[in-house]
């Protein structure tokens, strides 16, 4: 059954890293609806996982009474994920992309997440409305030969 309209899926879970596995299972299910294979599906799970791990750590400081919200939008051309938080927010433009080799030299254990998201997705947009919400919109085009 080919759907011609956009299909929308959403998952809300408590803001705790133990729920990242559940978020990835959700992404896999949506990727399955988009007829993606295991490799592509895993990469989408990574991108959404990174976005949600940032919300859990940076936006909500591991306060599990807060909710992580993920939306997935699926149409014939693309799969889109939206991760929204109402945390303190940040200025994504001043977070410079770091070279993994440089991070290795610095013995860093973090700083890879946003770079991974950008390398996996075809379009990444931050939409920050200060004091209201921080949205991360990620889009991956679907290949036509389905």
């Amino acid at each position, binding site marked *: 059954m080919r759907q011609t309209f956009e299909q929308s899926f959403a998952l809300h879970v408590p803001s705790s*890293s*133990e729920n*990242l*596995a*559940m978020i*990835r*299972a959700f992404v896999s299910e949506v990727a399955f609806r988009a007829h993606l294979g*295991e*490799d592509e599906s*895993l*990469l989408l*799970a*990574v991108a959404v*996982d*990174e976005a949600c*791990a940032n919300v*859990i*750590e940076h936006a909500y400081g591991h306060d599990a009474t807060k909710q992580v919200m993920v939306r997935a939008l699926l149409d014939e051309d693309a799969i889109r994920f939206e991760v929204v938080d109402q945390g303190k927010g940040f200025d994504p433009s001043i977070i410079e992309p770091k070279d*993994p*080799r440089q*991070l*290795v*030299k610095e*013995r*860093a*254990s*973090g*700083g*890879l*997440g946003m*770079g*991974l998201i950008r*390398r*996996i997705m075809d379009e990444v947009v931050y939409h920050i409305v200060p004091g209201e919400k921080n949205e991360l919109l990620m889009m991956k085009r679907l290949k036509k030969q389905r």
Partner: protein
Amino acid sequence: MPDTFQILEEQQGEVALLRLHGYLDAHTAAEFESAIQRRVDQGCACIVVDCEKLSYISSAGLGVFMSFIEELREKEGDIRIGGLLPKVRQVFDILGFTEIFQLFDTADAAVTSFQLKEEGDATNV
């Protein structure tokens, strides 16, 4: 049944072998980090991570590898990876980590690579 995370540890001569099962993400990375830290504190510099049963990795897991490698290489050791599944290897590839880390088809091959080096060193004495 949902997947979880587990580490099985073995010592093979000078080499500490850590076998990972399940997923390595922001939730489970801390456990992996302490396992490696414990080995480093014991003076072990040669570490092999068996990833044959690793089903998933995110940046938090990669970060553990990243934060230890310089220190271990300075100590004439290394952290080497065996048996990475293709779907997980993609994540290493995307960040160029396949060029920074030494990857082997199996954990055994990774363990042997350290032993050859030791024998080499011994012959050089």
